[in-house]
């Protein structure tokens, strides 16, 4: 009877019952939601405080410019007020002193305050005055309907993009595709490193603990390695599952509790980020028109993306986890892993950068080849899929990935069974190749 299920059970249970796992699993989403909602909550608290602003307008020209709102209460003082008087009265948040006609003398306005005023306050004061002066200036040209002419000449464009598709043309958005691709890629990238590393550490610990010889006298080394890879993978999926549920739950909870448009705000943030990352135009994606938005979402095949995400997750994870397991078995301590980790880190980082740039050129040669090569395909292909990739390409890439994953577990298993029982000298690459060829 195979003992792999028993190994998976034990490894899985001992991992998910660890305190660090519980803390990480619960704290991460809480922190994420907090991080996202703190700025929103801060502005909420800010709003509650009213600030008194006193305007000392010595010209008498600008009495209508500032109207009190939720944040600032403006009061006008027409009398002559000296700097000394202002200095002694600490009641108002700030004084705005206008000494001359601002159209003639743009620097005739000064803000005095006891405490440093905020940047947003200064912008508010400036922009309101500029707007007013703009209108005054326009009026001074005395052209009829000028205001209307200017408004009409403010043309707003609303570009939709349609992709020709076999099942009918779909409305798409480069921005949304980029965002979805980036999120998937990022997830896979993190998953490979975090859980692959966990496999490596676990193998190394078993080896340095010297429990491994007891273990392999009961189970085949290959079974032990596979059991470990599968159990860590399951732990990862469990953790991510809990995160997704918690983040959505907490997000909704916080939104309801504080009445914040948190989730939509978050979405917009991500869009804005991808805009800077991908360098593409995302106007349609953040178009407030919900119908348009829904249509764009419908243009992306989410079922396809989720299925592919899971498949690439599994394939990529098995590939890299085997590699990490082999490294963990070959060395005695953390410091010795560097020699083997550097090339792997390089490959994963390379794939990650290719992924980012593939968002701009999803059909480019580099993107195409890297989405076929198993070491980079999980990361790169996920960027390309939202832009629409031929099914045969995905199937070919997946077949290559899964075939190489199986090949890699075989190779890793050969290295592992020798490595776990050898102590002392750090092996060279040449020796690792020899181990692969050893008879069992």
């Amino acid at each position, binding site marked *: 009877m195979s003992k792999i299920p028993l190994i998976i059970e034990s490894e899985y249970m001992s991992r998910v019952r660890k305190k660090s796992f519980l803390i990480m699993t619960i704290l991460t989403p809480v922190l994420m939601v907090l991080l996202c909602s703190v700025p929103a909550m801060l502005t909420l608290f800010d709003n509650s405080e009213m600030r008194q602003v006193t305007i000392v307008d010595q010209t008498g020209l600008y009495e209508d410019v500032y109207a009190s709102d939720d944040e600032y209460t403006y009061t006008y003082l027409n009398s002559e007020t000296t700097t000394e008087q202002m200095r002694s009265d600490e009641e108002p948040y700030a004084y705005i002193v206008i000494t001359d006609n601002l159209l003639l003398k743009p620097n005739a306005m000064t803000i005095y305050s006891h405490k440093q005023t905020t940047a947003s306050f200064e912008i508010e004061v400036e922009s309101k005055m500029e707007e007013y002066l703009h209108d005054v200036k326009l009026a001074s040209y005395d052209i009829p309907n000028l205001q209307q002419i200017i408004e009409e000449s403010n043309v707003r464009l609303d570009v939709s993009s349609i992709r020709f598709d076999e099942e009918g043309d779909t409305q798409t958005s480069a921005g949304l595709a980029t965002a979805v691709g980036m999120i998937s890629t990022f997830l896979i990238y993190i998953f490979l490193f975090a859980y692959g590393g966990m496999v490596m550490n676990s193998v190394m610990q078993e080896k340095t*603990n010297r*429990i491994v*010889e*007891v273990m*392999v*006298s*009961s189970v085949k*080394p290959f079974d032990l390695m596979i059991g470990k890879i599968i159990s860590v993978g399951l732990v990862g999926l469990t953790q991510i599952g809990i995160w997704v549920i918690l983040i959505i739950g907490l997000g909704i909870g916080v939104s309801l509790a504080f009445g914040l448009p948190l989730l939509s705000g978050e979405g917009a943030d991500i869009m804005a980020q991808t805009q800077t990352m991908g360098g593409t135009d995302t106007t349609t994606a953040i178009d407030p028109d919900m119908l348009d938005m829904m249509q764009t979402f419908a243009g992306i095949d989410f079922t396809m993306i989720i299925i592919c995400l899971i498949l690439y997750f599994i394939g990529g994870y098995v590939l890299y986890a085997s590699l990490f397991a082999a490294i963990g078995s070959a060395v005695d301590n953390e410091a010795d892993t560097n020699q083997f980790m550097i090339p792997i880190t390089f490959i994963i980082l390379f794939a990650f950068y290719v992924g980012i740039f593939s968002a701009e050129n999803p059909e480019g040669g580099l993107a195409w080849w890297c989405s076929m090569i198993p070491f980079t395909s999980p990361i790169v292909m996920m960027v390309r899929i939202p832009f629409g990739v031929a099914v045969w390409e995905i199937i070919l890439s997946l077949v290559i990935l899964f075939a190489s994953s199986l090949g890699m577990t075989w190779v890793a298993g050969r290295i592992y069974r020798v490595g776990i*029982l050898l*102590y002392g000298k750090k092996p060279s690459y040449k020796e690792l190749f020899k181990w692969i060829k050893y008879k069992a």
Partner: protein
Amino acid sequence: MYYLEAKNIVKQYASHRALDNVTVQVPENHIYGLLGPNGAGKTTLIRIINHITGPDSGEVYINGRLSIPSDVEHIGYLPEERGLYKKMKVGEQLMYLARLKGLTRNDAKNQIKHWLNKFDIADWEKKKVEELSKGMQQKIQFIATVIHRPKLLIFDEPFSGFDPVNANLLKNEILELRKEGATIIFSTHNMGSVEEICDEITLINRSRVVLQGEINAIRQAHKKHLFKVTYKADETIPAQTLHSNDIYHVMEYGQSSGYNTAIVRKSDKATTNNELITAMMRECQLATFEEILPSMNEIFIDTVGEPVNPEA
């Protein structure tokens, strides 16, 4: 009937032959010593028996038939380098290891209870291994080795790292397991323990068997024809009364609780003990006469210290 037979085992590593045509036959219910200096190939042989690694050529038989991988469920192995999962609780750990050896959850539970009670450590079950002292961990390791009631037990350097109390406990447990019918293989270079508990040994040096057989037979075969005699000492007989002659040669004189002692060697192996005694009786009043057999330690050093003879 041999319980375990390893026949003509050869194991080659890249540039080093770890085992060269090694044959070991362990009779059922015996305690068998596998001796040899570090790096001789003992651990490799044990790993082959445990199916951890395979031989390049040669076969292992268990109970008369070719050994298959699932036989490890009937083997209990305590490696020289032994460890436990530090973060696991004692009970979980034993349960895991027992189930890997093929025990059902219930059987494992009963066995864990039995052994923890036997060593009077039932309250450790919920403790994490890392909270235990080294001596405590050794007890757990021993339990993990025997929990599935294996028919064959293999201890690799069992006494290294054990404190005297645990070492004695271990020895008694091993003897008890033998009484219950287990066959036991011991790998060690602690010769004192070998003489004390092993029935038969194989001495491996530089990947080859250099000495094999029953302990008593080996000691007989390696005897140096030395005898310890004590005789009366009084005013009339001087201490060094015994003189070397053509029958025997006196190696050294001594005194012990009022008697004179001497160690003598037969000049000719063909001389019988009676002839030797007769010759000595002419010189003194013999009190005791005893042949000195070499200790396993001496035999070990003599055999291993010699340049290796390919035909040995």
